[in-house]
């Protein structure tokens, strides 16, 4: 026979298991699957923790970022532009402020 029973997936077997190698293979599959599932759960939990950590770190980094480079909050303008800019900018352009 050309069939190789050892290489078939364990779920597809119908008859009783007689060979020791078959039993070992099935146990090996189950252990491997459980181990992989456990690793997946750990990876998901790590991902959630990393995302939370990333958000906290990003918030800190955005807080210390240069305001000229950062996005302006909708509906807010910087005080320096509206109050101090005309004199300073006119001086910088080589003119006398009005």
């Amino acid at each position, binding site marked *: 026979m050309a069939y190789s029973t050892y290489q078939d997936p364990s779920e597809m077997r119908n008859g009783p298991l007689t060979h020791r190698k078959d039993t070992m293979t099935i146990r090996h599959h189950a252990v491997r699957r459980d181990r992989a*599932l456990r690793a997946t759960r750990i990876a998901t939990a790590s991902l959630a923790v990393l995302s939370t950590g990333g958000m906290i770190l990003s918030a800190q980094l955005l807080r210390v970022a240069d305001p000229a480079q950062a996005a302006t909050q909708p509906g807010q303008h910087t005080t320096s532009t509206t109050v101090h800019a005309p004199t300073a900018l006119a001086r*910088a352009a080589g003119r006398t402020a009005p």
Partner: protein
Amino acid sequence: MIAAAPLTESSSLWTLVRVSGTVDLVLLTLSIGLGILVIGEGSVRGTPRFVFRHLHRDASLIALALLAAHIIAAVLLVHLDIVPTVVPFASSVRRVYLGLGVLGADLMAVIVVTTAIRHRLRLRRWRFVHLSAYVAWVGAVIHGAAPGTDRGIPWVAAVDVLCVAAVLVLVMARLARMNHHRPARLLAAGAVSALVLVAFVAWVRADTTDSIHAAPRSAAHALIQGETL
């Protein structure tokens, strides 16, 4: 104290909008990458493929939660109406860039719903809808790296560029697996990917240099001329 409270609240909301958007882009990129790895049969370098399928699903769900936080914070911050929040390109402010973000969010919602009822759909139909994740991701990238956002901050720009580069590399790896017997097609795809990456970097950098050098000059000019900003 009474006047300061709304300011602090809006500042917190603004931080939440920016932070959730930035982290969400990374998670979406991770989800896309895992989605590319999920395609196919058999194990991936000794790891069962269902591991990647689970991680793809979990990363997408975390990204979706962050997307919800991003949208809710933005709506509360600028008192956005329901129509521009849900319908793409319906906003009067930042129509294109905001519209792309809304489009991406809508597509994500459609993908989640169709995946939840996957057993009721034909595989080809579900796959077609699922492929729109790439469109959603592109919308998210342009929305996040648009002018006026935090892309002037070097590390934010680097995150944007790295996300684009990662997806392009993974797509190229996938194409290489599919078209290994068609080198010309593969070469063309590689050239297009490189061009897209260079164009994206140039786009991000152009605005950064504009905001540092050109904007103060134009502001000074406007103020000296007595114009209102």
